[in-house]
């Protein structure tokens, strides 16, 4: 089974994000990592090929430095990587990103495309399903559990009140939540092996995409501070803390 996983390099999730004068998230000179949400998808892919055979290819769009995300996936056990990098993609919106990823995926034949539910930096949450539409693939999103049986995908899809079982023939696309599988830590052997795995770098021209096709259709017109609430009080957990919380609850007529 050939599985592709969409991965993104994001600014260090524990860091403090900043915005540049162009109103874009500052990504240069900032520590970055494989998006933690994508690690779940990589893990799910690795488990599927361990059970059913096959290979895992990581597909990413981002600046040169973003190859670190693919290297992390390699160290977990993924087999190959494709990175689309092009100066024209700076500030790309969700549709442009989906077009690029779909074009990169379209160069090979995959049984299954996996992704995280949403990125940790932008939270857009629609790119994978847009990719599926562009590729003419069915999709099964928000999977908290994922399996392949008799050439069909079977997932448990998270819902407001529980879960639905969704089935879908392959090829297909699926997104996985953090409940799907705890990502493995790379082993030393994995980290050493990552260095020699094939990473293909492509430009927009390599994909036959014109710059106009990825021009962003969303433009930030202004950024301002949200109205701030008056600062509250912070106290140490002493004997009076329970009474203070109870008073606040009483003021709110909650008790």
């Amino acid at each position, binding site marked *: 089974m050939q599985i592709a996983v969409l991965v993104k390099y994001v600014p260090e999730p524990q860091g403090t994000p900043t*915005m540049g004068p162009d*109103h874009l998230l500052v990504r240069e000179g900032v520590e970055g990592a494989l998006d933690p949400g994508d690690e779940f998808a990589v893990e799910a892919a690795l488990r599927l090929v361990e059970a059913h055979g096959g290979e895992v290819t990581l597909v990413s769009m981002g600046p040169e430095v973003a190859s670190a995300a693919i290297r992390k996936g390699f160290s977990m056990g993924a087999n190959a990587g494709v990175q689309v990098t092009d100066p024209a993609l700076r500030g790309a*919106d*969700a*549709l442009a990103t*989906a077009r690029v990823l779909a074009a990169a995926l379209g160069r090979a034949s995959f049984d299954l495309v996996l992704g995280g539910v949403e990125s940790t930096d*932008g*939270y857009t*949450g*629609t790119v*994978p*399903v*847009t990719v*599926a*539409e*562009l590729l003419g693939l*069915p*999709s099964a*999103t928000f999977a*908290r559990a994922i399996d392949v049986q008799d050439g069909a995908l079977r997932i448990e*899809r*998270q*819902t*407001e*009140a*529980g*879960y*639905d*079982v*969704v*089935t*879908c023939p392959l090829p*297909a696309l699926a997104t996985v*939540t*953090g*409940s799907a599988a705890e990502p493995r830590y790379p082993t030393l052997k994995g980290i050493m092996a990552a260095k020699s795995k094939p990473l293909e770098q492509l430009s927009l021209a390599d994909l036959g995409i014109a710059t106009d096709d990825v021009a962003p*259709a*969303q*433009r930030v*017109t*202004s*950024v*301002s*501070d*949200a109205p701030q609430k008056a600062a*509250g*009080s*912070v*106290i*140490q*957990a002493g004997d009076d803390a*329970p009474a*203070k*919380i*109870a008073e606040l*609850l009483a003021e*709110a*007529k*909650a*008790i």
Partner: protein
Amino acid sequence: MTSVWVVADVTPSGVSPSAFELLAKARTLGDEVAAVALGPGATEAAPALGDHGASTVYASDDAVYADTLGRPAAHALHELVAGHAPDLVLFSTSYEARDVAGRLQAKLGCTLMSNASDILGVDEAQTQVFGGTRLVDVALEGPTPRLVLVRPKSFVAEPTGGTAEVVPVETTIPDELTSARRVERHEEAAQGPRLEDAKVVIAGGRGLQDPSNFSLLDDLAAAIGDAAVGASRAVVDAGWVPYAYQVGQTGKTVKPEVYIAVGISGATQHVVGMKGAKRIVAINKDPDAPIFRLADLGVVGDALTLVPKLIEEIRARRS
């Protein structure tokens, strides 16, 4: 003449009230407001959609929309949009809506904005970044309609007493679009008030240290009464509590009278789902936790010792 559409989520339990919130906003933006409702129960929901401001409801009760994921709905919407050319199409963020909007974007080549917290015009919307501390206005360009996914509870629903003309949607859905199917539905029973409706929400995070300690929050909720227990994504991902507990970007948006964050650091992911609470109480061991910046009352200390004392205090006040 501008035309604004609202795509209503039709679920097994009826039309989602978030559509009414969007209709309230849509009325201030467009000369013409329509709603689209697809799935069993759609026609039945049309009067309520009309009562909240839709002058037209495009409706289909076809079970195909409920039994599949997004693809048939995107197909039908594509056809409707091509026939009526709205300027703006609003969705309330949900798993279903993301699937539909994401696919519709690919079909139309129109821009899709996620996580909007306000709509400023038919071609401009606002979102919040960095834990809701910064407001970003975004101009929506390129071909129409512009598509926007709006966070639930961004607007207040308001009945108008209007009535809607119901236009049946009779799109034929090609079989190949129905290959991803829901074959089973499982509901996890919940007790007490719903997270979205409770007067007090008590949410737990990693600081509770162990899943078994969540029972402390249940006890606190029981002591308060009109209270529900929620959780951060970290502990939902770790499998401590079911997804239905999750408050935040990927989970529920709540606006209770009081929000008590227990052992939650306050990541952006979480904060956007609860910052609209009237009063916020935070309990955390780490004095530098970002949640304290939002809190009306912050308590630096161990939740495992504090919460039982709080329960005692509340019981004492009650008796």
